[in-house]
Structures are given as C-alpha cells and as structure tokens.
C-alpha cells in the first residue's frame, strides 16, 4: 500500500542547465555577467579601437570628452587618448586579475589541502606561516615586494598573487577539515582508495565551489591592488593602466576632473561586476540557500 521506495523520481536536466537556471534567477548576477562580458569585450577589441600605442600623443592635451569625434573621451595632459587607454587598461586589469587570482588560488589550494587533510604538526606549521603572511598588512608587503622585484608587470602580478593566497588557503583548509571526515570520504577510504586520490578526486571537487565563488573576490581585490600601485606611480610605466590614469589625472583634478573620473568609473564597474558574478555563482552552486 505504501509507495514503493524504489520508484525513481523523474530525471533532472543536465547539470549545466540547472546551473544556468539557478544563476538566471538572480537579476543582479545577470547584470554582473553583462558588465563582465563588456570588460572582456573591451580588452579583446582594444587593438581594433586603436591599433597604435595607447600612450602616444593623439591630440591636443586636455581635450574634454564629446568634442572631437576621433577622441570621443578626450585627452589627458599629455594629449593621450583616454578612450584607447581605457580599452588597453581593461587588458591589464583583466590580465593581472586573472593571473594573480590563479597564483593565489593555486598556492591556497596546495597549502590548505595539505593542512586540512593531514592536520597535526603539518597543519600547525603551515598555519603559522599563513598567519605570518596574514599579519603583515598586504599592501605594505606588496609595496616591499615591488620595491625589491621592480615594477615590471609580471612581477607585479606575481607579487599580488603572493600577498593574496592566505584567505583561500584558510578556506580550503576549513573545507577539507569538514569534508575529510564526511562519510563518503570514509567510504572511499574503505574501498582502498589512496590518500592522493582521496584528496584530489573525492574531497577537492567538493571543496571547489566556495573557492570558485571566492575567486571572484580575489580577482576584484587584485584589480584594486594593481590600480592602487599604479595610482601611486609604482605600476609598469610601459602599459596603460586605469590606476595610472587616475594618478596622473590627480595633477589636473581642478580643471579636468574627467581624466580621473572616467577610469575610476571603469574600475568601480569592473569590480562591481566581479562581486555580482560571485553572488550569482554562489546562488547557482549552493542551491540549499533560499531565495
């Protein structure tokens, strides 16, 4: 008389369809996705918008926006085209953001996974090192690393990665600590699965979703760090960078505020897009949460 427990529910659509459906539900996240796509597009077509060096003189200095159609957003005090700097700046921001995030996540996963899986003295040691890194104010450490390594864009990216790995490491560690005693891990262990397979094939895939969501935060942070460095004149002088544009615009703030306002808005929108994207990913990956 009771429903037979063995009857299956109707099959669910594939995972990516479910993922997109849940992501779509958050309208702010859709906006984030659109903004993010725009930034990528800017970076991609920078070469088409302006095939020359964005740092060359393109017109009379301090031309206001919307006056000359060939320089739609005007020029700065050195006569450089703000629009093409903006597009090339998107490249630098994205490049630094993505690579620095990958570096920090990679370090974070390795340290966090080892620490959380094995525990004991290994965990103690790694956590003291993490704490030491966390204790030094990250921007001060970044300045120091840049002072030592120099201002080349590769080194800056590397340094940003180095100062941002502690948070993901702690997260991965916490995930591993809660997952390593989960019954499915015990079950796999009981089948004779080796430690490395347990770490990488059983636990890591389950620990990843929150890390992926957090990657959007690191990416936003990395972009903010890079632009702050460039603003202070410590960025790579050979590339157009939004932070650098704002820093240079500071000198003409009274007369030509658009020189710093335009790239500033670009940074705000880019960072905003990452936050919204992150929230959308969170909703899509943790369907347990309501609303």
């Amino acid at each position, binding site marked *: 008389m009771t429903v037979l427990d063995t009857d299956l529910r109707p099959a669910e659509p594939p995972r990516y369809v479910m993922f997109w459906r849940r992501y779509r539900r958050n309208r702010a996240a859709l906006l984030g996705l659109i903004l993010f796509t725009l930034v990528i597009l800017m970076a991609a077509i920078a070469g088409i918008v302006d095939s020359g060096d964005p740092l060359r003189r393109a017109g009379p200095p301090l031309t206001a926006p919307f006056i000359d159609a060939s320089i739609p957003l005007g020029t700065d005090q050195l006569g450089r085209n703000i629009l093409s700097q903006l597009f090339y700046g998107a490249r630098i921001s994205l490049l630094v953001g993505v690579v620095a995030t990958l570096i920090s996540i990679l370090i974070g996963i390795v340290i966090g996974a080892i620490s959380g899986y094995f525990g004991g003295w290994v965990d103690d040691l790694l956590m*003291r*090192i993490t*704490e*030491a890194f*966390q*204790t*030094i*104010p*990250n*921007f*001060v*450490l*970044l*300045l*120091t*690393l*840049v*002072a*030592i390594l120099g201002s080349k864009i590769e080194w800056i990216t590397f340094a940003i990665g180095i100062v941002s790995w502690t948070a993901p490491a702690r997260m991965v560690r916490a995930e591993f600590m809660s997952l390593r005693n989960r019954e499915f891990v015990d079950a796999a262990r009981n089948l004779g699965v080796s430690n490395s397979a347990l770490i990488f094939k059983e636990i890591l895939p389950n620990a990843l979703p929150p890390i992926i969501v957090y990657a959007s935060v690191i990416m*936003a942070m990395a972009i*903010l760090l890079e*632009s*702050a460095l460039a*603003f*202070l004149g*410590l960025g790579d002088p050979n590339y157009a960078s939004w*932070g650098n544009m*704002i*820093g240079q*615009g*500071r000198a003409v*703030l*009274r007369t030509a*505020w658009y020189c*710093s*306002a335009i790239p*500033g808005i670009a*940074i*705000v*929108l*880019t*960072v*905003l897009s990452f*936050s*919204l994207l992150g929230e959308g990913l969170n909703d899509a990956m943790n369907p347990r949460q309501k*609303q």
Partner: protein
Amino acid sequence: MNLNIPPIAIYALRRLFQAIPVIILIMIGTFLLLKLAPGDTVDALVGDMGGADAAFIARLRAEYGLDQPIWVQLWRYMAKLATFDLGQSFVYEQPVTTVLLDRLGTTLLLMATSLSLAFSIGIVLGAFAARRAYSLTDNLISTLGLIFYATPSFFLSLMMMLLFSVKLGWLPVGGIKTIAGFYTGWDHVVDVARHLVMPTAALSLIYLSFYLRLMRSSVIQVADQDFVRTARAKGAGETRLMVHHIMRNALLPAVTLFGLQFSALLGGSVVVETIFTLPGLGQLAYQSVIQRDMNTLMGIIFLCSIIVILVNFLTDLLYARLDSRIELT
C-alpha cells in the same frame, strides 16, 4: 595549575605564547626580504656619499657585520630586533625606531576612527537590511554596500577632494593640521578632526561594506535558528528578539572580522595617507619605497605586524568574554 590566577589571564598568556612563532617567522621573513633587495646598507651609504674606494667599502661592510656568514647576520639581526633596534634610516639620518614612533600616533588615530565608524555603521545598516530582507530598503542598502566595496579608496578620495575642497571649499585637502594655525586646546582638536574627515571616510567605506554584508547574512542566519523560534513561542516581541536573541549571537562573527580586517586596513592607510599627505606610517612606507630606504620599510613591516598581533590578541580576549560557550577554565 591552581594558583588562583583568573582563567582569562591564563588564556591571555597562552595566546601571547602562540604569537611568538608568528613573530619569529615574520622576523626571519623580513631579514630574507632585506637580503633579496638589490644593494645593502653599505651600498646605500656609499651612494649617499657619492662613491668611495673599495677598501673603505670593505671596512664599512666589516663594521656592519655584512662580511659574516648569513646565519650570523640573521642571529644578530634578530637579537637587535628583539630590542626594537631596527637600524638607521639613511634618509632621515635617525634610528628607524624614532622615525616610526614619530609617525605612529597619526596612523593609530586614523585607524581608530575609521574602524569604529566602519564597524558601528556597518553593523547597524547590516542588521537593518537583514530585518527587512529582500525588501526595497534591503536592496537599497545592499546596493550601496556593493558600490562602496567596488570603489577604490584613492578614487573616492579624489572625488571627495574635488567636491568638498575644490568645489565647495569646506574641508582642507591634506595634512593633519593647519600648518600656520598654531591652534591649541579645543581648537586644535577641531582642526585635526576637520583634516581627518575625508581620510577617515575614504578608508572606512570599503570596510563598512564588509561589516554590512557580514552582518546582514549573519542576522538572517541567526534569525532562522531554533532558539529564536523558541523565544517567539514564548511570546517575545520583535524588538526583544532582535536585542537579546539575534544580535547577541549575530555580533560574534563581526567581532572576529574586526581583528582580521585590521591588517588590511593598515595596508589601505598607505594610499589614503599618501593622498591626504598625512604624516603617518602609511605615507612613510610609500616614501621609503620611492627612496629605497629598506631599513625603514622593514621597520614598518615589523611594527605593523606587532600592532596587528596585539589587536588580534585583544579581539580574541573580547570574543572570549562575549561568547559564553567558550570556557576559560
């Protein structure tokens, strides 16, 4: 261990004990960084003097102990650090410790105002948004939080300067006090406060958004818990629920964040102090990088770490007091 020592003191001692390896790691780290930096103290001195002959340089190296094996150097460096001897700043021609202590007050003042502002406003707004979750008010507050979060402090600083100093002329553009003012007493306080308005706002907004978001999710989460339902079933009203049951529990994660954010906030002060020409540690850090004054830079790292460890220690003590589940016995 029953010597009638209050448990909180034992706990405090143990926490201090745990901080020692972290400090040692940081000391070793700064030493290695110093070694990585191109050029040592002698190079800097010689460069300052406009060159010298090889024999003199060698003698100087011996004098500074730079001809010793690396571990001897490390040992000496640590021994000096332990007595807060951070060496000479060749830019300021003073002991680094003196230079740092000179700047410490301004930075601490900026930290204290920013963090308390960010903390209190963030918590109130976050709790407010959570109680009206998914309403218009909540959307407004949350959007504001997102925008604060996305706005770099230097950009915000410039825009504030443009509006309040350049256009409106209400606030001074920089410095900690009016140079030729020679204010005393209450006037001095007001003067400093006026100089600190914009730096504080610029520095605190991003952290305000952190607290706002944390508090919002924390309150929503606690409000969903069984004991809140119990209190409701006892006939408690909404205000009572909020004050005694929800906030009391939802505040705990915010307190933890307080300690964690302090380090990031110190880092953020570099940019803000530089923009507003505030004579604090952050500005000093920037100048040291520009002038390649590595000794001072290392000193800043060391001092900042000590401050961060102290603040974390105090937050932990506070947390232990606040969370009655923690037993200090």
